[in-house]
């Protein structure tokens, strides 16, 4: 078992290094330097700038410096925001992004799973149809459309429903819009997944056996059905983190939240290459580590997981 964890950990580290290398190569193969602007800078000035940021070094040395910085968790300076380190941007951006991400996660768990279970228990009844209809809409309508609809309906477009602020997180009410829009897709997906997995479990023999043994219905559900039905839901955690992460790009833009996603989009529009690189590597590392943790937790919780997964 320990061997499996160590192997997974090493693979994760190697993957992060590969991703970092790839982003470095991609960002340095862009035609024109980072200081190519519409209004051309004087040659001398570009030289000074390149010297300052060590862009006149041979590429291999730049790569070495970059990787060395990475090991010290230093992502370098921004080229556009003078005097700002990428690290600072990320540190500034984490709190709001983490907050709305976490709230979205909580919402997904406390709403998605119960809705899925209720829907499965009341299969083909009106409540099932309503829940499934909403869930289908939720997985098909892009989050930026949901976000703008929320703003329009609840933040001014409909005078009677003007309950929420249009942007920012200054008041607690400000969280409602971004969190709902961010959670929407995954919430619907988890609902659908829970429902279908619950229906599958309810058809199993051990449920019939439990009922035949005279165990009370709620106990059959709580002890046998729901526990087993949630296993496929856990495997969705990885993609869910990805969905929340990429969702936050647009949500933060729409609601003007100063989070990492917002900075990322801003750096893309400004062509701020070090920031793009830094945040990409940060996102990739975060995602890989989260998936690793989930897998480890999963392996510890579910004894049926075999540790020879790599061979299949």
């Amino acid at each position, binding site marked *: 078992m320990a061997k499996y964890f160590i192997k997974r950990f090493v693979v994760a580290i190697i993957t992060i290094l590969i991703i970092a290398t790839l982003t470095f190569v991609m960002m340095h193969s862009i035609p024109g330097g980072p200081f190519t602007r519409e209004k051309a800078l004087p040659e001398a000035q570009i030289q000074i700038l390149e010297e300052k940021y060590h862009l006149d070094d041979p590429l291999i040395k730049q790569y070495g410096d970059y990787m060395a910085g990475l090991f010290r968790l230093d992502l370098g300076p921004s080229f556009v925001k003078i005097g700002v380190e990428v690290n600072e941007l990320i540190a500034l951006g984490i709190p709001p992004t983490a907050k709305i991400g976490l709230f979205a996660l909580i919402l997904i768990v406390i709403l998605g799973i119960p809705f899925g279970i209720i829907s499965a228990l009341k299969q083909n009844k009106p409540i099932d149809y309503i829940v499934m209809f909403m869930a289908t809409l939720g*997985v098909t309508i892009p989050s930026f459309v949901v976000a703008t609809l929320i703003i329009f309906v609840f933040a001014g477009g409909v005078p009677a429903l003007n309950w929420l602020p249009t942007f920012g997180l200054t008041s607690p009410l400000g969280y409602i819009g971004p969190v709902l829009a961010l959670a929407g897709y995954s919430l619907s997906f988890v609902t659908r997944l829970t429902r279908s997995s619950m229906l599958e479990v309810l058809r199993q023999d051990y449920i019939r056996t439990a009922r035949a043994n005279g165990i009370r219905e709620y106990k059959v559900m709580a002890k046998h059905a729901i526990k087993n039905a949630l296993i496929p839901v856990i495997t969705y955690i990885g993609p869910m983190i990805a969905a929340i992460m990429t969702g936050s790009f647009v949500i933060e833009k729409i609601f003007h939240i100063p989070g990492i996603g917002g900075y990322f989009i801003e750096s893309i529009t400004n062509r701020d290459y070090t920031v793009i690189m830094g945040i990409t590597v940060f996102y990739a590392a975060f995602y890989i580590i989260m998936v690793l943790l989930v897998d480890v937790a999963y392996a510890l919780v579910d004894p049926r997981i075999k540790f020879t997964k790599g061979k299949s």
Partner: protein
Amino acid sequence: MSDINKNKFVFVSDREKEHDEARKSLTYWADAFRRLRKSKPAMFGLAGVILVVLFGLIGPLFTNVSYSDQENDHRNLAPRLAIYEIEEGVFVHLSGDYNMFIVPEDGNLQVLEVYEEEEELEGRSDVGEMLSPSEMRKQREEEAAKVENVNLIKYMYGEEFIELDYSFKLERDEKGHDFDFAITYKGNTVNYPAKTVANKLYPFGTDSLGRDLLTRVMFGARISLLVAAAATLVNFLIGVVYGAIAGYKGGRTDNIMMRIVDVINSVPLVLIIILLMVMFEAGLGTIILAIGLVYWVNMARLVRGQMLSLKEQEFVLAARALGVRSRKIITRHLIPNAMGPIIVSMTMMIPSAIFTESFLSFIGLGVSAPMASWGTLANNALSGLLTYPYQLMFPAGAIAITMLAFNFLGDGLRDALDPRLRKG
């Protein structure tokens, strides 16, 4: 032979005849099609897809403007116009940009010229557009200090003037009027619109540059569908070949190839697409390439899995025994047998490609102006959302309908082509 008494034979009845006739055996595809036709959501989905395709392909032939034509006077016109009756049978419409139009019966809008009284009317053009109430108040107070009754615009209509007093709109919060404007013509003042009529000139309204939204949404459909179809094709070509080779060769080749897939798949794919888009010049081709170059990993996994089980079957052994080359076995025997799941995966790929494309356009990495996909249109509408919500509703609705249609069709196809995956 001739001794057999013919009377001993009895003719079979029609019913028995029917019984004996062998029913035509259904092929895999015929069976799948039959099942697909029975699924209502799938048929709805198919109808939706056909509608969207027709809308994008044929629609632009029926409009007489192009997606890039700008009509400066016709900025920000809503699809439904509130019209004021200034005189018996004469209706005017006031746009969000304070352009006034005569709206005749046939719906042809006729803009009225503003009567300029030297400097008095300066700085009024953008009032009421995107200002917060406090800013608005400030601006109004400043203006009121300068000239009394500056919130007045005069339009020329024939020999007479139509006067518009929009101070009511600005003071609405404090004074509690329930109307925004006072429109005076020949001494009669109108405060309330008589009715709202459909905008016959621009059924979907116009955007902030006076471009016809209907045409733009139609061209958006073209772009979104083109991107989706082409990206799916790229994804199909790379994914199927890659997966087939990995699955068929097996062993070390498979191991190395699938580790590469694992590395690509270990980061959110959208992130890689964004990097590719930043690296290359943004444009239609880049989007197609970026999406196609990244999403193939899922297809490769699926095809590899299919190959692993198919290659163990006897017909492959037979082909190999006959000396058929690997390449031919893969293309002639293995891939056609895996076509069902591949098609399902491609149908599911289309909505996610449409989504990714609109997502990219929305964050500003899309096709270059004046071309616009649905994502670009939605993004452009964002800044004026509260004032001109229709500019968002149409592209957003188009995205939602298309995604729904493709998802329904994909679900139906999955049930029809791959009964093993069917869920209860």
